[in-house]
């Protein structure tokens, strides 16, 4: 017996965001960190902050932490992104 069966998946890929233009240099730039707030993020971002400033000449690092690590970023943090040259988002698992 032949079956004609239907595809159970969405078929259409969900809309994807576009990557921002890559930076030619980190020198003098402002970099934003968005942490999900888990325990493992503290050491990671502290180390990255030091690396970016000391080894790559980053002018300023802005650190923000989501209020709920399982939810999308808070609107007020998203609104700040336009003031940064690049964003690094990290999870602590």
């Amino acid at each position, binding site marked *: 017996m032949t079956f004609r*069966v*239907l*595809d*159970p998946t969405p078929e259409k890929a969900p809309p994807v965001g576009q990557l921002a233009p890559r930076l030619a240099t980190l020198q003098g730039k402002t970099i934003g960190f968005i942490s999900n707030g888990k325990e493992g993020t503290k050491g990671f971002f502290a180390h990255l902050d030091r690396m970016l400033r000391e080894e790559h000449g980053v002018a300023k690092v802005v650190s923000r932490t989501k209020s709920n690590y399982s939810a999308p970023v808070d609107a007020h943090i998203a609104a700040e992104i336009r003031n940064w040259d690049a964003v690094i988002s990290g999870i602590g698992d």
Partner: protein
Amino acid sequence: MHLASRTYDIDDFWAVQELFHANGWTDGLPIVPPTQEAVSACLEWAMADPAQLVGIEPVRGVAITAEKLAINAVMAGCLPMHFPVVLTTFAAMLRPDFLLHGATASTGGCAVLIVVNGPIRLELGAAGAFNALGNSDRATAVIGRAIRLCLINLMDVRPGAIDRSTLGHPGKFSYCVAEDEEDTTWLSLAEQRGIPKEASAVTVMAAGAPRQIMNEWTTRPEEILETFAAEMRANLRHYSIHPGNYALIIPKQLREHLQAAKWSKTDIANFIHERARIHRREWAEVGKGAVVRDRGDSVYPAMESPDQLLVVAAGGPAGGFGAVIPPWLGNKSHAVTVPIGACIDCEPPKK
């Protein structure tokens, strides 16, 4: 009825199984082949247009249509009469309070507990007595499974993909219970949450595995409920200190003692709220001293308020057992209750 999904012509039943397994479209168990006839029958029963947009998954922007839910419901073994419950359950999970992405992606490994209330339970033969949290009946088995297949296939909630669970639990195959409304004097869970008795409803909760308790050596409500509260305290100590929705499943034997003493669900919730709480310093007793810090005297209740407790009458007639079902992670996800079949335009779709 016009269905938009891609079709595959497959030689036989076993080849269908292999196609679906090879594509990662199953939960590891065999599926019912989702044919056009079976899927259309589900949609017609629910008076849902195939293109009906049930919602958009908020993090990745996936459009959830009635057609795709129906395909997965058929695969799970649903009959058309089960489909309205699946449709409503997924709509409930899409409410922002449920935090669907977090609840299904988290390493915490929770499942979606579905509690069915109202007259539809009787129409479906959804049983809330023997083996209520296990394989009690066809309806709850296939409805719970349908939700998992929908998550797998519509949102890529596959192990190692969106589903990052460390352990998960058996409820991720199916986790649906019907309340035993006929054998209790209590208001149903849905009534407690504002749904009229005549309406059917589903409540969804991002839930850990059931923790079973036993106390058949007392008839006093305070002592019975102290055992439930102790299990909740154990969860606060061993798992998570965050307050949120807990469910208590109370079978007939213990329920009758509570009802005989005229304790309502609200009375139970008030008592549990007072008793299910710990001091942060207790974490030091279970190996978590590192996070007590200087807050040892702080008190952590299992719930922010008594109305976060979901009390469900269900279980077989004998046995002094009960179950505590803990939240995935406190208030990050909230239980949501939605009536079934409440709509603003109930005209059947055009053929």
